[in-house]
C-alpha cells in the first residue's frame, strides 16, 4: 500500500484501490487453489505444503532473474518447470507411500514438508527480511480514474488468465487430460481401462506444482517475500476451494476473486489487523452452514 502515501486519496478511492489490489491477490490465490483443486480432484490428496511450492517458485524466479539476468516474466516458465520437478519427487517419494492409508497421514507428511521447505529456504536464501524480484516495469502504472494499477499487476492478471485457459485446454482436449478426468471419477475403473494410474497421479501433481510455481513467481514480482510466506496462502487456497466447490475451475476463479477482494477490503477498513481473522470467521460460518462448501457436491 505504498500508493496511499504518495497521492492523497479519499476514503472511497482508497477502498477502490484496495479492491483492485484484492483482485490481483485473488488471481494469485486462484492459481494456487486450482492447483490444489486439481490434485485433490484427481488424487483425493490434501497437501497442506502446497504454499511452500509457491514460496520455492518465488525464490527460483528471483535467482533466475538476478543471477542469470533473465526477464522476470520469462523466469515464470523456469520456476514452473523447477517446481513441477520438485512436485514429481514429492509425489513419488512421499505421498505415494501413504496413499490408501489413513487420511490424516497426508496431513502429517505435508506438515513435515512445511518444516523442511521453510528451513531449507531460510538456509539457502534469506532469514529475516523480504526480497522482491526486480521487474523492468516496476514504478510504471496505469491511471484508472482516481486509482492506479501498476503494469506488473495488470500483466499478472493477464498471465493468470492465459495459464487458466491452458489448463482448461489440457484437461478437456488432450489424452492425458481425459485420463485425469477418468481417474478423478473412479480410479479403479480407470485402471481397468488400461490407464497407468501412477503416471496420471505424478503428472497431476506436477501440473498442480507448476501452477504453484507460477503463482510464486507472480507473487515475487508484485509483493516482497521471505521463506515464511507459504503457510497462509495454502490455507487461503483451501478456503477458496471450499467457497468455490471441489473440482470446479470456474468455482475457484469466483472464490479466489471474492476472497481476495473481501480480504483486502477488511484489511483496508481495519488497518490490516483483522484481515485474516475475518476471512477465517467467514469461512467457518460457511462451513457450519454448508459442510461441503458453497458449491460443493456431496461426497469427500
Amino acid at each position, binding site marked *: 500500500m505504498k500508493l496511499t502515501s504518495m497521492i492523497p486519496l479519499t476514503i472511497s478511492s482508497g477502498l477502490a484501490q484496495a479492491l483492485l489490489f484484492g483482485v490481483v491477490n485473488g488471481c494469485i490465490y486462484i492459481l494456487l487453489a486450482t492447483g490444489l483443486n486439481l490434485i485433490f480432484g484427481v488424487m483425493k490428496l490434501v497437501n497442506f505444503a502446497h504454499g511452500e511450492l509457491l514460496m520455492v517458485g518465488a525464490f527460483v524466479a528471483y535467482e533466475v532473474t538476478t543471477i542469470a539476468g533473465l526477464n522476470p516474466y520469462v523466469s515464470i516458465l523456469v520456476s514452473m518447470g523447477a517446481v513441477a520437478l520438485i512436485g514429481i519427487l514429492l509425489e513419488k517419494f512421499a505421498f505415494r507411500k501413504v496413499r490408501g492409508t489413513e487420511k490424516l*497421514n497426508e496431513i502429517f507428511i505435508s506438515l513435515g514438508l512445511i518444516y523442511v521447505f521453510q528451513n531449507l529456504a531460510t538456509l539457502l536464501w534469506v532469514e529475516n527480511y523480504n526480497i522482491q524480484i526486480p521487474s523492468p516495469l516496476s514504478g510504471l502504472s496505469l491511471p484508472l480514474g482516481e486509482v492506479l494499477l501498476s503494469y506488473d499487476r495488470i500483466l499478472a492478471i493477464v498471465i493468470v488468465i492465459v495459464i487458466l485457459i491452458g489448463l482448461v485446454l489440457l484437461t478437456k482436449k488432450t489424452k492425458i487430460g481425459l485420463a485425469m478426468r477418468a481417474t478423478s471419477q473412479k480410479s479403479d475403473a480407470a485402471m481397468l481401462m488400461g490407464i497407468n494410474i501412477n503416471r496420471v497421479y505424478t503428472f497431476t501433481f506436477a501440473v498442480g506444482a507448476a501452477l504453484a510455481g507460477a503463482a510464486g513467481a507472480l507473487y515475487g514480482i508484485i509483493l516482497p517475500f521471505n521463506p515464511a510466506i507459504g503457510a497462509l496462502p495454502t490455507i487461503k487456497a483451501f478456503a477458496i476451494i471450499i467457497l468455490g466447490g471441489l473440482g470446479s475451475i470456474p468455482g475457484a476463479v469466483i472464490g479466489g476473486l471474492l476472497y481476495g477482494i473481501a480480504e483486502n477490503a477488511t484489511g483496508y477498513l481495519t488497518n490490516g*489487523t483483522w484481515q485474516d481473522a475475518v476471512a477465517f470467521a467467514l469461512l467457518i460460518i460457511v462451513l457450519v452452514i454448508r459442510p461441503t462448501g458453497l458449491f460443493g457436491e456431496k461426497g469427500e
Partner: protein
Amino acid sequence: MDFKAILTEALKSRKFQFAIVALVFVTVLPLFVRSPYLVGHVFMSMIIFALYASSWNLLAYSGQGSLGHAAFLGIGGFASALVAIRLGVPPIVGLFIGGLLSAGLGLLVGLACVRLKSWFLAMVTFGFSIIIVTIVSEFDDVFGGMIGFATPSFLPQVLPFYYGTLAIVTSSIVAIFWVMKSKWGFAFKAIRENELEAKMIGINTAKYRLLAFIISTFFAGLAGGLLAESQLFIQNDIFSAENSFLPLIMAVIGGLGTIEGPIIGSIIIVSIDSFAPLAYPLLQPLNPLFPGVSTVGPSLQFVGLGLFLIVVVIFLPKGITSLLHKLYDYLREDETKKVKEK
C-alpha cells in the same frame, strides 16, 4: 469385579508395571539431577507437553485431527493466569477454570466441526487459532500483547511445583487412558475407522465427536495453565502455529492412538529442542555453505525434524512405540528360547 481384583489384574499387566517403574523414575529423578534448568525447564516441559500431546492424541483417536490446538492451550493459560491475578482465585483453582473455559470453547468449535471431514476440520481449527490470536493481540490492555505478563504458580518453584505438576499430569493421563479404554473410547475408535458404519450400528456420532472435543480441549487448557505457571510468565506467542503442530508431531512420532505414544514423543521432541543447541557449534564449519543465515544450527534442526516426521509416517506408521514393542518382544523371545533350551 471389586477393586482388589482389578488391582491384582493390573499388577500382572506388563504395561502397568512399566508405567509404575516410569513413574517412580520421574519421581526420584529430580533428587539426583539437581540442575534447576533441567528440572524446572526440560523435565517440566516434557511432563506438561506429554499431557498436551495426549489431549491432542485423544481427539485424533476419534478421527479428528486439529491443526489449531494451541488456541486451547493459550486460552487455558491466559484464563488461569487472569482469574488468579484479577479475581484473586487460588492458582490451583485457576488451572481448572482455565481448563473448563477451554472445554467450553472446545464445545463451540466441536459443534462447528461435527459434520466436517478430516481436512475441513483441520482448516476450521487452524482458522479458529488465527481468530483467537488476533483477538488476544488486539485487546492488549487485558492480555498484555507482545510483552505478556507475569503469572503466579500454585506451588513454589522448582521442586514442589514439579511434584504438583507431575501429580496433576499423571492423574490426567490416567483419566485419558480410562476414556480411551471405556465405552466412549470404543465409540471414538469406531468413528475414526468408519463414521458411516459407526452410525449404522447405532452410535450417536455427533455426541461422541463432541465428547472427544470437550475432553481433549479441557486437558489442553489444563496443560496451558500449567505451562504458564511453570514459566511464571505468559504472552501471546503461546498461540503460535508451532505450538499447534508440536502435539501432533509428538503424538505421531511417539505412536498415534496409543497412550504411551504422546509421552514418548514429548520426551523425544523436548530433548531435541533442549539439547540440539549444544551441537550447534559443531555445525559451525557448514556456515559458508549457507549464505541465508548467520548460524546454520536452528534451521538444520527443523529440517531434520520435518524429515524425521515424514520418515516416521512412511516407515513407522505406529511410531517409535511400535519399535519399542518389537524390541521388547524380541528380547522376550530370546528369554523363552533360553528357558526352553535349558
